[in-house]
C-alpha cells in the first residue's frame, strides 16, 4: 500500500489547479467576495455590539437599578422616582447613588437634518453614569450642554461648540464620546435636569446608578438593596453588561448568521463547481494517474488539496479586500462601526472546511473515471 511519501512531493494538486488560470481566478474572486461579505457582516455586528455595550462597561457604575423586568438601557422601559437615589444612598456600602434618565428622541442638526439619538442624562454633581471615554471636550456639563458620540459628530460634520436642537431646546456640543455608537442610533449625554425639561416630567428617572465604597462588595450591597426595595430590579455591573451583550446578539446576530450561512453555501457551490470542472477538464490526466497506480487516497488528496488551496487563497484575497475597503467605508459612512475581533479568524478554518466538504462531488466523479479510459485515443 502507498504509505510513505517524500517530503518534497511533486505539487500535482497545485499544477493541475493552476493549469486553468481563468477558472482559478474566478473561483478565488468568488470565495474572496463571500469571505469579505461575511467578514464585513460580523465586523458590523461586533462594532454595533461594542458600541451598544461599551458605555455600560466603562461608565464606572457598580450597580444598576431599574423597574422590574428592565435589564438594559437599549430595549426596555423603566420609570423610577428620582428621589429613590437618596434612599438608596443610605444603604451600607453605597458611596453614591444618582438618577439616570434615558430618552429616545430626535436631534436636529441645522435646519433640515434630523437623527434619532439615545440621550442618557446623568447627575452633573456626581457624574455617575457619565460616558467612560470622552475624546474631545469635557464631561463637565453646564446647563444646555451635551456630549455626542464620535460617529454622530463625524456624520454631521459637527465640532465642539456647535449647536444641535432636541425637542426645540438648543444644546451646545461640549464633548465627543468614544465607543457609544449602537449602529441604529448613537448615544448622547446630557444633564439630568435638562432631560427632565425634555421629558416634561420632574423627578422621574429611568435608572438609579450606584457607585460603592468598595466595588468588591457588589454582591452583598446588591442583596441589601434588594432587601430594602423588593419591587426594584438590582443588577450588578457584570450582569448588566451581559444583558446588553445578549440583547445585541439577539437583535442582529440571527440575521447576520443567516446571511453568513448563505455565504457558506455559495462558497461551497463555487468550490464544488470549480473542482468538478477541473476534474472534467483533466479527466484524461486522472485516468492516467489511476492507470499508473495512483490510489483513491492519493487522488482524494489532490482534489481536497485543490479545494484547500483555492479556499485559502480566497480567504487571503477576501481579507486583503476588506482591509483595503475598511478605511474607505469608515470615511464614507462614519456611523458604520466596524470592529474586527480576533474571533473573526474562525472564518478561515470554516471556509477551509467548507472547501474540503465541497470536494465531495468532484471526488464522486473521480471514482467514476476508469483507468482503462487511458487507452482511448
Amino acid at each position, binding site marked *: *500500500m*502507498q*504509505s*510513505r*511519501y*517524500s517530503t*518534497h*512531493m*511533486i505539487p*500535482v494538486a497545485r*499544477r*493541475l489547479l*493552476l*493549469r486553468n488560470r481563468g477558472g482559478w481566478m474566478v473561483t478565488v474572486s468568488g470565495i474572496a467576495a463571500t469571505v469579505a461579505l461575511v467578514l464585513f457582516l460580523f465586523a458590523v455586528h461586533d462594532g454595533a455590539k461594542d458600541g451598544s455595550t461599551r458605555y455600560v462597561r466603562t461608565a464606572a457604575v457598580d450597580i444598576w437599578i431599574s423597574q422590574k423586568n428592565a435589564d438594559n438601557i437599549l430595549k426596555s422601559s423603566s420609570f423610577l422616582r428620582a428621589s429613590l437615589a437618596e434612599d438608596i444612598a443610605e444603604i451600607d456600602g453605597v458611596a453614591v447613588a444618582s438618577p439616570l434618565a434615558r430618552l429616545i428622541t430626535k436631534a436636529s442638526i441645522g435646519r433640515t437634518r434630523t437623527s434619532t439619538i439615545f440621550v442618557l442624562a446623568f447627575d452633573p454633581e456626581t457624574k455617575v453614569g457619565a460616558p467612560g471615554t470622552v475624546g474631545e471636550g469635557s464631561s463637565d456639563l453646564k446647563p444646555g450642554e451635551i456630549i455626542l458620540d464620535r460617529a454622530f459628530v463625524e456624520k454631521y460634520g459637527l465640532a465642539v461648540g456647535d449647536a444641535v436642537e432636541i425637542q426645540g431646546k438648543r444644546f451646545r456640543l461640549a464633548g465627543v464620546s468614544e465607543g457609544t455608537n449602537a449602529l441604529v442610533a448613537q448615544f448622547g449625554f446630557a444633564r439630568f435636569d435638562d432631560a427632565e425639561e425634555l421629558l416634561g416630567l420632574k423627578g422621574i428617572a429611568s435608572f438609579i446608578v450606584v457607585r460603592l465604597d468598595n466595588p468588591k462588595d457588589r454582591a452583598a450591597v446588591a442583596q441589601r438593596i434588594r432587601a430594602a426595595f423588593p419591587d426594584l430590579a438590582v443588577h450588578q455591573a457584570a450582569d448588566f453588561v451581559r444583558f446588553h451583550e445578549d440583547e445585541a446578539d439577539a437583535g442582529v446576530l440571527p440575521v447576520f448568521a443567516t446571511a453568513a450561512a448563505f455565504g457558506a453555501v455559495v462558497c461551497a457551490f463555487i468550490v464544488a463547481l470549480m473542482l468538478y470542472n477541473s476534474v472534467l477538464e483533466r479527466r*484524461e*490526466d486522472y485516468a*492516467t*494517474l*489511476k*492507470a*499508473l*497506480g*495512483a*490510489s*483513491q487516497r*492519493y487522488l482524494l488528496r489532490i482534489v481536497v488539496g485543490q479545494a484547500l488551496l483555492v479556499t485559502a487563497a480566497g480567504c487571503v484575497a477576501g481579507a486583503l479586500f476588506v482591509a483595503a475597503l475598511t478605511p474607505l467605508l469608515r470615511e464614507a459612512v462614519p456611523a458604520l462601526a466596524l470592529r474586527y475581533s480576533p474571533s473573526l479568524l474562525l472564518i478561515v478554518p470554516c471556509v477551509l472546511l467548507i472547501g474540503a466538504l465541497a470536494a465531495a462531488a468532484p471526488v464522486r466523479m473521480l471514482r467514476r473515471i*476508469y*483507468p*482503462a479510459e*487511458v*487507452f482511448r*485515443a
Partner: protein
Amino acid sequence: MSDVLLRAESLSKEYDSGVVVRAVSDVSLTVSRGEIVLIIGPNGSGKTTLLSMLGGLMRPTRGMIHLGDRALHELSDAALTDFRLRHVGFVFQGFRLLDVLSVRENVQLPIEMAGGANARRTAEEMLAHVDALHLAERSPRVLSGGEKQRVAIARALANQPDLILADEPTGSLDSAAGEAAIQLLTGTARAEGRGVVIVSHDTRIAPHADRIIRMVDGGIPVRN
C-alpha cells in the same frame, strides 16, 4: 523461456448494456520473464481489452490472471491499484504524459507514489537510460513524438516493473522514431528480464517479438 511471469487462463470480458457484447472470449496466454509478446489483430478484435485485463485496469468477467505469485482477479480494487503501481509499467499510444509536470516529474511521480526513496535521482537515472536526461526540466508539450515516447518508456520502467504493457507504442511515431522506441523498450526488457506485451497494428514490430499472437473477434484462434 520457462520462467513464466504472467499466466492468464480462459479470460472473457462481456459488456451488458441491454445486449451482451463479448469483447474477449476464452483467451489463455502466458508470458515469460524477458519475453516479448506481440498481439496483433484488426480493430475491435479485443486486443486493448485483453491488455487492460492483463494490466489490472479492468476485471475479467470470467477467467484468472496470475502475475508472479499474485492472483490479480482476487485482489481488491485498492490492492490491484497498488499492485499495478509496483509491478506493471504502461506505454500508451498517446504517451499520456502529464503536461502540467516536467519530464522529470512525470518519471518521478510513480516512484513517489510507490514511496520509493530518492525518487528524483531514480527518475534522472531512468531518463539517462533512455537518453532523455537533457530533457528533464522541459515540459512534455515541447517534445517531439519520439522524445515523448522515450520519456513514457522511462516512466513505465520507473518502479522496476515485472511486466510492461504497451498499447500501439509506435502509433504516433514516424518510422525511425518508432523503430528506436521499440528497440529501447524490448532491449531494456530483455536485458532486465521483464516481460513485455505489445498490442499493435504495426507489423514492423514483429521482428522484435519472441512470439506473435493474432486476435480475431475477441479470441485467439488455435493456429496461433
